């Protein structure tokens, strides 16, 4: 990234920096790929990763209108897609094209960031046409062929694969396994024992994908089977392992890189042609593809057969559609609640068989609804690992800028979170990480002087904790200087007496607007976003952020997030004649209290909860409600907690639990503290949903 062109705006510079990084990364991965192509063992994950790199570069460049980069990376992506799906063999020619395209990309990106974009059109066009030559067709919309086509499976076999079997087959293919067709002619009377023997033999060295019975030449006494199996073993070894009297074996497709010398020999000599002796029945035989079976060797794979069948097992869906679906599910849940309530009333009213049956049906409906809800929720879930990739790029850029050495460690990449939450947490996390490198990790010299490894470590870990997902960002830097924070807070007028503030409370100051301990704003962290924005952004998705720090050893940011925002279980409470919902995920327990249980400490109401003192908050005071009647003598405190903080919210009554769908109050009321939204109770009543994180933050802040 260079700054010598003042006309280039910042986002374009950011793009070019990121593009350069992707291209550099592509380069090292392509080099690995070239190495592995030489050795004949291609890692499908590596290929996939290169494909993804080209894909994201294309997307980025397209957004910024860099047509050259976008066109070239788009074509590379196509080529890589074919390689990835096994439709094209990775040979030296293809590698050369990929490496050359990469060179052009790299110099294109570099000269763009130097403000000079001219003279590349010809090079890009040349690369594109070479890529298209590899793809066999200059047309941009090449027909999508199924990767299964390379197997030359008969229509009959293809049609008889269940979705799962098809998936397994694709999986085996993508792992570069050899796919074998094992044809067995067995006696009708004893075929199951025989087949079990054959199956067991295959299972010792591979996976059985499907078993298709087919008609034997003598259909009164025999039955044939075609077993599809995936295995690492080469033809000879596999046929040794599965040796059986009545079995013929066909190698449908070698792994992505079949060992060069034996490959041509096997099909010609060792491979029997299974179905041809049965040609009289071949019209009836479900698997007669002797011709097809020999066709798809590596040379033919370059010109795949066109097929209308789609390849991908995934569907991209606009998250808005899922939201809509979730809303409908939520409303169904409410509709169910009212049916269940009716059934219950009917049963209490006058016991009747009909009422019991209605109750039963409502139960069945409830179970199915729960499944549906879970299903829709699952679709929204994506692994946190997707964030990690993004973070590692940022860490590399910043540490290079700062001249610091940083190693990034990831844990719990499989932890799943709602897609929207993952998106919304990305910016705050990015900022926390920037902070960690900027303020946390010391320079290599300082670290060596302190007896640490000169390479700093940032550890990002995520794990599920009850109904929350916790993401921790931990650095092994110098820690936060609490005294400096206190002094700064005093200087800024946030606190009257810095000595009266505990260390833990002092750390909270970092999240206040306008707080910054560095004297000079650095290029990285000081981009106008403070930790207050980080906290607000996290709070907007009902999350909390906490800091722990140890001087000299490092700082840990703990972000606690709900797993999903869509449907939540809530506790319905009433206070001063009004009804509210509290998300159950933040409710720890509830207590019955009388006036005698209350104490006042430092002008705040508290109560004793086992060994600790629990601060209390009267909901009516928080929401400024007028109480029409006397306060009841016995009331409840709902103990809520997010992260490490606890608060007892004092209410009149607990009305029960219910699933609710939180709906936004709209822009106008969005900033109202303590209210997360509104929800429909299913009996035509709409109530407000309290935002526990917001209430806790607000109370703790005003209380200190």
């Amino acid at each position, binding site marked *: 990234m260079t700054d010598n062109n003042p006309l280039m705006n910042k986002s374009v510079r950011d793009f070019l920096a990121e593009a350069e990084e992707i291209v550099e990364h592509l380069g090292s991965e392509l080099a690995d790929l070239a190495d592995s192509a030489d050795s004949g063992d291609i890692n499908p994950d590596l290929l996939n990763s290169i494909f993804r790199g080209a894909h994201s570069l294309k997307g980025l460049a397209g957004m910024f209108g860099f047509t050259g980069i976008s066109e070239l990376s788009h074509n590379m992506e196509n080529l890589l897609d074919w390689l990835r799906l096994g439709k094209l063999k990775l040979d030296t020619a293809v590698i050369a094209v990929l490496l050359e395209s990469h060179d052009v990309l790299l110099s294109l990106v570099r000269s763009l960031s130097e403000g000079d974009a001219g003279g590349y059109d010809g090079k890009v066009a040349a690369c594109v046409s070479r890529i298209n030559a590899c793809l066999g067709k200059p047309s941009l919309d090449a027909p999508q062929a199924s990767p299964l086509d390379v197997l030359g499976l008969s229509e*009959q076999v293809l*049609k*008889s*694969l*269940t*979705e799962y*079997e098809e998936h397994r087959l694709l999986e085996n293919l993508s792992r570069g396994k050899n796919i074998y067709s094992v044809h067995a002619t067995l006696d*009708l*009377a004893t*075929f*199951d024992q025989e*087949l079990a023997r054959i199956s067991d033999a295959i299972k010792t060295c591979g996976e059985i994908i*499907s*078993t*298709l*019975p*087919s*008609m034997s030449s003598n*259909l*009164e006494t025999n*039955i044939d089977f075609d077993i599809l199996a995936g295995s690492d073993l080469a033809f000879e070894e596999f046929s040794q392992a599965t040796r059986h009297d009545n079995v013929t074996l066909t190698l449908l497709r070698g792994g992505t890189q079949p060992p060069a010398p034996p490959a041509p020999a096997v099909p010609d000599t060792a491979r029997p042609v299974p179905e041809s002796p049965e040609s009289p029945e071949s019209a*009836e*035989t*479900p698997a007669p593809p002797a011709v097809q079976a020999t066709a798809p060797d590596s040379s033919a794979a370059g010109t795949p057969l066109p097929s209308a069948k789609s390849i991908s097992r995934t569907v991209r869906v606009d998250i808005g559609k899922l939201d809509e679906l979730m809303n409908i599910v939520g409303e169904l849940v409410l509709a169910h609640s009212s049916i269940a309530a009716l059934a219950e009333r009917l049963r209490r009213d006058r016991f009747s068989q009909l009422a019991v049956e209605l109750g039963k049906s409502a139960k069945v409906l409830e179970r199915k609804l729960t499944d549906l809800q879970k299903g829709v929720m699952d679709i929204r879930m994506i692994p946190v690992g997707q964030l990690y990739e993004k973070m590692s790029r940022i860490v590399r850029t910043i540490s290079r800028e700062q001249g610091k050495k940083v190693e990034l460690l990831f844990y719990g990449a499989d932890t799943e979170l709602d897609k929207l939450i993952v998106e919304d947490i990305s910016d705050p996390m990015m900022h926390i990480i920037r902070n960690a490198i900027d303020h946390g990790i010391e320079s290599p010299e300082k670290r060596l002087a302190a007896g640490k490894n000169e390479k700093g470590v940032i550890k990002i870990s995520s794990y599920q904790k009850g109904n929350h997902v916790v993401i921790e960002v931990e650095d092994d830097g110098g820690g936060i200087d609490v005294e400096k924070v206190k002094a700064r807070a005093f200087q800024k007028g946030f606190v009257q007496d810095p000595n009266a503030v505990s260390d833990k409370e002092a750390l909270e100051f970092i999240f206040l607007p306008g707080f910054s301990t560095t004297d000079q704003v650095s290029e990285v962290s000081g981009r106008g976003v403070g930790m207050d924005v980080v906290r607000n952004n996290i709070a907007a998705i009902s999350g909390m952020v906490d800091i722990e720090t140890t001087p000299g050893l490092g700082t840990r940011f703990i972000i606690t997030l709900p797993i999903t925002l869509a449907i939540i279980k809530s506790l319905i409470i009433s206070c001063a004649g009004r009804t509210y919902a509290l998300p159950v995920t933040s409710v720890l327990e509830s207590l019955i209290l009388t006036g005698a249980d209350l104490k006042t400490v430092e002008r705040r109401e508290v109560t004793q909860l086992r060994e600790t003192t629990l601060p209390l908050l009267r909901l009516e005071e928080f929401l400024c409600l007028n109480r029409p009647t006397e306060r009841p003598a016995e009331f409840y405190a709902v103990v809520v907690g997010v992260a490490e903080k606890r608060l007892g919210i004092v209410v009149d009554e607990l009305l029960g639990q219910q699933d609710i769908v939180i709906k936004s109050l709209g822009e106008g009321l969005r900033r109202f503290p303590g209210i997360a939204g509104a929800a429909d109770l299913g009996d035509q009543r709409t109530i407000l949903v309290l935002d526990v994180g917001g209430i806790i933050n607000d109370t703790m802040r005003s209380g200190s």
Partner: protein
Amino acid sequence: MALRAMLVSIVESLGDFRIVEAANGFEALRLLPRERVDLIFTDINMPDINGLELISYLRNNPNYQSIPVVIISTEGSQSDIEKGRMLGANDYIVKPFESSDLENIIAKYLGDRQG
């Protein structure tokens, strides 16, 4: 297994039919040459050979080609059901099914043989 028992008891209650049960695909393949079958019910997900493979086999074997086949499957396996239909299954019913569903199927395929 419970489903098969239920299926059997419902079909029994619908008329005087002789019912042959096969616990899995292999058993079905073994039973077929020995029985004269007028209607076949099959699940899709079975441990040894799957229902689609069974249907494919039946439809390609002149001895069984014309026996009506009804898929019994769970909701959500629409694409498998579709494949079954393409392979030549005559009908399908979705679990959980009602006895009236079976009644309709039996009337449709065995109507003239009932009772």
